């Protein structure tokens, strides 16, 4: 029952926050924060020691005509991602505490609805329900970009919408074909995950279905060469939108691969694995090299996401529980570090009214706190040992080496350009002579508190990763390598 609350509370909160702007400009943000806090309070206790594979399971009839049910379930992986969604959602609300000036109610309603859709994606175990939430999380985000984004927001919103929607149709076709194929084999029309797990659709047709889902998910993951929507979208979205996009929405692509593509199509997924791994390697290098060339700080961070998601793609397609744990871990660490980086870029833009690295330099003198946090999170994202991202990347590479040694070595070499773009970003933004004409104020209480919390999380993930790995492990060992 509490699974429904995880969805219903954010949706209702959004419905409340929208009209609340008439009562007062500050009400929507308070309602959003409270909503997310309540949801988090419900979600946290759902993790309990159990021998069962699933922490919670709920099934209600929905569209019996097509064998679709309202089936939600929670395991360690979805619990971790749900918690990540809720916590970073709170940061997204907190970072836009004093904005937007226009229609704050609708803004917060859209944030909450998008988060609700994302939680639904992580919980749904009926494939059609999953797709429903997949679409649902998109539209509010388009509004956030289109209404409150930066100068080029129209194009960004349209590009984001077309890419995710268009690839979404591949999922829709894929799951309908999968369900009908299952019906032909067993006589029962169902979209239920557990039922569909029983029969892998064989042959060419099964491979094509898998390919459709695979393409849709790597579009969301923004792997090379279907990443083209990401830089523009992440750059033009308002800070809260960028945080949600990069920290949470990207993760749904990886989740889809882990939850659906690999278990539902073990044979077909193994067939495509070499290509997927090399796409991952290509993403690592492509993202890193393009990040190096950017002069827009926000765009630079957007490109680094492509690079990091390359590791995720490799990790998923080596099919062992070590690499999969690394994937889940990297998703969380990347969520935290990139979220923090987008918050910092948002603060810089708020203060300097530019994101252009050429106009920065010497920030350390003017904004010491902002700059030190910025440096810290850039180093974390780069994969500095002792911080969260390192653990995830290390586990992925460690798990991948026995399966695909050449690709793993190539991916590891990809850490060198990562160091390059990180250091160049730090140097151009924070070092150098300060601009004498710059009059601005450093981080205040609210921002310091947010940054400290995120930094603490990244350090904790880096030096004591075991609790997180222990939560994720049962979910992954059950699903991993059935064909091996």
């Amino acid at each position, binding site marked *: 029952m509490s699974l429904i609350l995880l969805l219903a509370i954010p949706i209702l909160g959004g419905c409340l926050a929208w009209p609340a702007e008439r009562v007062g400009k500050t009400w929507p943000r308070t309602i959003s924060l409270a909503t997310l806090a309540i949801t988090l309070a419900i979600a946290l206790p759902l993790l309990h020691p159990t021998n069962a594979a699933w922490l919670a399971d709920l099934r209600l009839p929905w569209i019996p*005509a097509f064998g679709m049910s309202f089936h939600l379930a929670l395991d360690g992986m979805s619990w971790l991602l749900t918690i990540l969604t809720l916590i970073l959602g709170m940061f997204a609300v907190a970072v836009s505490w004093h904005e937007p000036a226009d229609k704050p109610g609708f803004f917060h309603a859209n944030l909450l609805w998008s988060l609700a859709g994302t939680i639904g994606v992580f919980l749904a175990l009926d494939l*059609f329900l999953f797709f429903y939430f997949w679409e*649902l999380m998109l539209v509010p985000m388009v509004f956030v970009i289109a*209404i409150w984004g930066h100068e080029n927001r129209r194009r960004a919103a*349209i590009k984001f*919408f077309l890419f995710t*929607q268009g690839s979404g*149709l591949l999922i829709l*076709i894929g799951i309908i*074909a999968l369900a009908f194929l299952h019906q032909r084999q067993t006589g029962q029309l169902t979209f239920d995950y557990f039922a569909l797990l029983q029969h892998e659709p064989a042959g060419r047709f099964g491979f094509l279905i898998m390919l459709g889902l695979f393409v849709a998910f790597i579009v969301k993951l923004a792997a090379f060469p279907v990443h083209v929507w990401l830089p523009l979208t992440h750059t033009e979205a308002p800070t809260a939108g960028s945080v949600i996009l990069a920290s949470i929405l990207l993760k749904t692509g990886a989740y889809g691969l882990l939850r659906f593509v690999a278990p539902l199509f073990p044979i077909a997924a193994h067939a495509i694995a070499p290509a997927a791994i090399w796409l991952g390697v290509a993403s690592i290098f492509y993202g890193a090299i393009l990040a190096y060339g950017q002069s827009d700080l926000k765009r630079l961070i957007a490109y680094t996401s492509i690079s990091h998601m390359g590791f995720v793609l490799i990790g998923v397609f080596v099919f062992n529980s070590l690499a999969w744990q690394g994937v889940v871990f990297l998703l969380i660490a990347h969520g935290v570090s990139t979220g923090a980086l987008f918050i910092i870029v948002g603060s810089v833009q708020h203060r300097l009214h530019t994101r252009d690295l050429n106009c920065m330099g010497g920030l350390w003198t003017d904004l010491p706190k902002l700059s030190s946090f910025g440096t810290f999170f850039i180093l974390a994202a780069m994969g500095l040992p002792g911080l969260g991202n390192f653990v995830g990347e290390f586990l992925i590479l460690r798990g991948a080496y026995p399966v695909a040694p050449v690709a793993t070595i190539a991916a590891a070499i990809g850490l060198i350009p990562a160091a390059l773009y990180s250091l160049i970003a730090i140097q151009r933004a924070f070092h150098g002579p300060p601009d004498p004409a710059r009059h601005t104020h450093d981080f205040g209480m609210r921002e310091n508190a947010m940054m400290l919390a995120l930094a603490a999380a990244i350090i904790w993930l880096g030096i004591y990763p075991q609790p997180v790995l222990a939560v994720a492990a049962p979910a992954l060992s059950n699903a991993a390598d059935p064909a091996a």
Partner: protein
Amino acid sequence: MTQAAPLIILAGAIAALLAAIAIRRAALIANGVAALGLLAALAIMPAAASAPPIWTSLFSFGAAASGFIALILAASLLLLIIAAAYWPTAPTLPPEEFPLLLLIATIGACTLAAAASFITLFLGLETMTLAIIGMVAYPRDRPDSAEAALKYLILSGMSSAFLLFGIGLLELATGTLSLPDILTAPGNPMTLAAFALIGIAAGFKLSIVPFHIWVPDVYAGAPAPSGAYLAVIPKIAVLAILVRIGAMPGATLPPSAIQAITVIAMLSMLAGNLLALQQQNLKRILGYSSIAHLGYLLVAILAAGAVGHVAVVFYIVTYALTMIAAFGVIAMLSTAAVARDADRITDVAGLFWTRPALAAVLTLALLSLAGIPPAIGFIAKMYIFAAGIHTDLWLLIFTMIASSVIGLFYYLTIIIAMTQKPLADAATPLRIPAAGRLVLTLVSLAVFIFGIAPQPLISLVKAMFG
């Protein structure tokens, strides 16, 4: 009680309306009588469905026909209310004749939907078309409307000629006008030619490629309530008769016809969406969009079978709800007295800031047309995909995906235009009549609720096909 009770009540309402207009000209009375007539016809539907059959050589009021008639009546009622809210803004026009024309068109559509013979089919079609021409030309001082009506008149006349020629050939070849008899009669080249001619006429009414040229001009020129009627009712009625014929014994399409319909469907989807891309006029966009949507519907028609039929009806319900919502918003934003409706994208720009409720309704309608949850259009599109995949129509399915993605672009352009903050805060004070609010609320609730929980509607539609 007879099965024809709804038709009889409609005919009575038309007579009563004529009498009422003769006694006293008042918009309220005229609209009231028309609305009561439609309501009464709708209310009698459940009782009529269980009555003994009547006039079986001319009509066939089975479950399918009754379902379509109920849909036509409900849609007409909603459109009547929109029209009643729209016309008072043009004080120089007589408001009483519009409901009369609407009732006449509706009785024509119901006749067509329940036809069992080419006689009733042709009578229904012509009654409907002629009344619609009057509705399109209703604002007599608008040159665009006159042009649209003339265009529609000439092309309708031509398609009727095709239809009549086809009917004549069929009668010559088979010696009967009854639909079931003709379908079971042995085929010969003459019947094939006849069906091709009839198909052209149907293609014109459904506005599919290559019979779509008239659509954008007529949609754009017609005043919003007439445009909505034109976009919704004839399509329901023609699809009703096609679906019913398709379900009759002996109605199998030859392979050549299937190939032809496949090509037409693909062209309609692509042409409708591609041509809409560059448009700046909402009604033209809706017109092109309707061409694409009829292309999608053809996929379900080709899929046939149990899933296909339900998909067709579910889709046409969705299409009707959505078009009524979209045209309803345009009608509420417009003033009938000026030379054109508020139908350009620039007219709705910034609507989110000035009139958020109307913007929300239009957004929901556009999401539904684009097939995105939580709007009902998503379920409808899923239904067509399901029907197509079930019968392995992969070429059509992939064309549909490609054209859907193209379609997203122009729907989203409108939505984003609505979200852009207007430069000057020049919100013109616009009072939306309660009747208009009622219809828009009802329609958007239906679009939203059936988008989340479609099962009741699916069960209802399934009941139409036993």
